[in-house]
């Protein structure tokens, strides 16, 4: 309910009734408990942030150590290691995932959503531990996956474990996984705003003040911890960003269109090959990550070692013009292939970093090609790479708001917002048109779960009171009328209940039967206001969600729908029959 005065009146009526049902002492205890738990939850969010930040720092160390010891410390890696490291690591990962950490497989985002919507916030502690070990091994050995999604799941898992130890209520337990997820993602990205937005946009799906504070606190504290240990530098060196002429937005639109198609190709690949791999005989699952690793190793040996691992170093190079546009385009294509191989084979790891990699390469390639055709364009390869990252984020992950803020937060440059918004819009629209189900929902359905789709939630139509209300058919009584006079107002065609306009404000109602009884009791000369004292009924506004009407219509036969500017002006009425009828029509529609 919103906080307009009339709405508050409506709520007041309900609260008074609710209060009368609860004993005074128990009511006080309940309020104290709610208050204390809210406060504790906020404090706990800070601790979740700290522990998630520490875990993500260790995760980063683990990935780097795996890389150094498995692939080598140099820039040019030996072909033997390139082939053996991801293959052998794939075998180990398969055994671990099948026998020890079965839940480490799959998307951390979806598992956090499942914890929120299905398991009451429960994530076994074994899951983040498994994710930590297997993802570090996979990314460190060169599988084309990123550390963000595992970090998100590690944060969610730690938060869930902490919530269980604290014996939080079911409501709080449900919310604690997203709080941890935000902390994990914020530390992995070094971008608290994007992490908060992503969790709100893709995991929780709604903005509520209760959860927002906790998510922000955990994200900020995890980033502080991460920066304490790893420094405050962003994931890439950000080049100078400039947009000299608005007409250059057309060039970025082209990037948006190409990025949209690339996103569709990427997500279609996953949607097609993942179930195919899962349908293969069970024994093949022992070898799938190894085969994927071997194929990635072959790509690396053949001249594109950049596709291995998260690839942030190469995103940085692409941003600073270290590759030709042809090479950038090849790398974008090969990264899609390598990530498909890693992900569909069930190797634990995330798709955020590969998405950013593909976007950066594609962006810089498109920018480079456009520069060849139109040398006067002012955008640097870095600008196009940054915009490209946002484009893939919007097109592939379908997180349009996060995609814009992520680029802004990472670049720290407001002037890039226009290109990003334009390009992202194109990519998002194309991706939605060609691939109606977002990738996270595709993965959920492939896993046999039915989690709410955040994109569908964002866009589903909301029924409002105005959709169910009907015009006033009978007379509206005035509170100063006598009962006798009011009774005369009822005729054959009048409804059984009439609304009464109170003075100076407020509404009530009276039925024909009540009126008849009162007149028989000899109260016919009394005014309606005197007999209806303390019987105010809630009133609604046409723009209120229909859900709100549903709360009242079972207690009051007829509810007034009044103008927001003049509470005495009746716009229509609504009854239980009207509301249910509208919902029925909506469902059939």
């Amino acid at each position, binding site marked *: 309910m919103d906080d307009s005065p009339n709405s508050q009146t409506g709520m007041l009526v309900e609260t008074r009734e609710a209060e009368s049902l609860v004993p005074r002492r128990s009511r006080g205890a309940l309020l104290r408990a709610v208050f204390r738990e809210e406060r504790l939850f906020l404090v706990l969010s800070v601790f979740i942030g700290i522990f998630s930040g520490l875990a993500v720092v260790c995760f980063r160390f683990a990935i780097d150590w795996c890389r150094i010891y498995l692939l080598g410390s140099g820039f040019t890696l030996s072909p033997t290691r390139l082939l053996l490291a991801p293959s052998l690591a794939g075998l180990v990962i398969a055994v671990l995932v099948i026998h020890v950490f079965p839940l480490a497989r799959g998307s951390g985002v979806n598992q956090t959503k499942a914890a929120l919507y299905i398991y009451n916030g429960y994530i076994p502690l074994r899951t983040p531990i498994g994710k930590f070990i297997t993802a570090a091994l996979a990314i460190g050995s060169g599988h084309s996956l990123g550390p963000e999604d595992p970090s998100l799941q590690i944060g969610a898992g730690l938060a869930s474990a902490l919530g269980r130890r604290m014996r939080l*209520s079911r409501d709080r337990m449900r919310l604690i996984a997203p709080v941890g997820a935000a902390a994990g993602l914020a530390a992995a990205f070094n971008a608290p705003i994007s992490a908060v937005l992503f969790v709100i946009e893709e995991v929780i799906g709604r903005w509520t003040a209760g959860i927002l504070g906790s998510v922000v606190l955990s994200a900020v504290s995890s980033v502080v911890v991460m920066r304490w*240990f790893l420094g405050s530098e962003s994931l890439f060196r950000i080049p100078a960003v400039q947009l000299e002429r608005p007409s250059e937005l057309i060039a970025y639109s082209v990037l948006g269109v190409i990025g949209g198609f690339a996103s569709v190709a990427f997500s279609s690949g996953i949607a097609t090959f993942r179930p195919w791999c899962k349908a293969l005989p069970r024994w093949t699952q022992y070898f799938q990550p190894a085969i994927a690793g071997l194929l990635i190793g072959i790509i690396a040996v053949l001249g594109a070692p950049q596709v291995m691992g998260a690839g942030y*170093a190469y995103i940085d190079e692409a941003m600073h*013009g270290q590759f030709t546009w042809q090479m950038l385009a090849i790398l974008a294509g090969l990264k899609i292939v390598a990530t498909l191989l890693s992900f569909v084979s069930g190797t634990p790891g995330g798709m955020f970093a590969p998405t950013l990699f593909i976007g950066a390469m594609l962006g810089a390639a498109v920018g480079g090609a456009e520069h060849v055709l139109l040398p006067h364009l002012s955008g640097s390869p870095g600008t196009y790479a940054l915009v490209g990252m946002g484009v893939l984020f919007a097109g592939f992950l379908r997180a349009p708001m996060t995609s814009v803020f992520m680029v802004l937060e990472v670049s720290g440059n407001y002037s890039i917002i226009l290109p990003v918004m334009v390009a992202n819009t194109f990519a998002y629209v194309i991706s939605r048109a060609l691939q109606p189900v977002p990738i996270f929902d595709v993965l959920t359905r492939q896993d046999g779960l039915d989690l709410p789709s955040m994109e569908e939630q964002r866009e589903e139509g909301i029924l409002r009171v105005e959709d169910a209300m009907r015009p006033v058919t009978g007379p509206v009584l005035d509170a100063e009328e006598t009962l006798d006079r009011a009774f005369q107002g009822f005729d054959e065609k009048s409804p059984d209940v009439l609304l009464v306009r109170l003075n100076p404000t407020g509404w009530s109602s009276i039925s024909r039967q009540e009126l008849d009884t009162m007149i028989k009791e000899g109260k016919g000369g009394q005014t309606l206001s005197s007999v209806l004292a303390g019987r105010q009924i809630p009133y609604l506004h046409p723009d209120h969600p229909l859900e709100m009407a549903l709360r009242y219509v079972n207690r009051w036969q007829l509810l007034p729908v009044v103008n927001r500017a003049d509470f005495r002006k009746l716009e229509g009425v609504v009854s239980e029959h009207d509301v249910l009828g509208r919902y029925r029509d909506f469902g059939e529609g």
Partner: protein
Amino acid sequence: MVASEKEPGLRFYLSREPLILALLSALAVVSFLAVSGLSRIYHAQQRSLGNRWFTRGTADLKARHFELAVTEFRAALLYSRDNYDYQLDLAEALLGLKRTDEAYAYLINLWEREPENGLVNLELARIAAQRGETEQALRYYHNAIYAIWPGDPEVQRRDARFELIEYLLAINAKTHAQSELIALAANLDDDPSLHARVADLFVQAQDYEHALAEYRVSLKLDRHNPSALAGAGRAAFELGRYDLAQRYLEAAVAANPNDAKSAALLKTAELVLKMDPFRRQISVDQRNRIVIEAFAAAGERLKSCAAVGNTQGSASSAVSTPSLADNWAKMKPQITEQGLRRNPDLVEAAMNLVFDIERQTNTACGSPTGIDLALLLISKLHEGN
């Protein structure tokens, strides 16, 4: 929320919340310390790997193994992405491989971080100069001249200015080069080779006056420097101060007998001094003999030029030389010792004709040599008169 579910939690928080928060804080502190330990190990390893690859890269860069150096510096950057020195040396190695665009990307990034870095500005200036972006090149060169340099900043700044001057001379911006040279000369140490180098650049900028002054300073510090002597001789020669040129060039040739250029110049200077009939302190007879010799030489030059013009069909020689030849032929009978003694005004008329012949044949038939060159130089010397 159901009230019965709430009650255990409520009692729990009321009784133990402070204790739990204290425990959580303690756990956070312990975890923090543990991760700090890990972090120290991690960062030490990263530093060590970065240094190891950087050391290898530096050695390969010195040995001009640029390809190896590039991969080693890139490896070093994996462990310290923002390390300034690693990036700078990588850019140097890339420049060594002529991968200018990649080097530029690193350098411009370094420049954004430290716009006052001398070496970065100098490298950017070189790249801009290579790309023909004169304005940018000049901007970066000037930045480099006034930038912060490690080690001996004065030497580095001076070298940057030398490079800028050489660039200006290469693009034929002589006036700009002269002003830079004047600024450079004003702040030079007492190093004869530096003054000689500046003087050489003044010569290239065709500012012979300043060149001569710098050569003199150089010679003051090292009077036997053959190249400074030769330079001073050439500067004096270009200024038309042939007696001074003769002295310097004699000394230069004496100091370095293999200096053919100075020897040739000396010979010309001697001829100029010998063939100039208007110089003071010579007798009338001597002057008349010089005029006769010059007149004869001019006649020869005219004939040879006309012959070349006829064989090559040169239009320019065909136009002017006939009238000069007529004048020369008309005057020739009078140009004798007796004729000149009888009519001293003929000296000037004869020499004017000689100068006209030398100038026009110089234009039509190319640069003269020997006595003709000397006469041409004498004509320039007395042009104002």
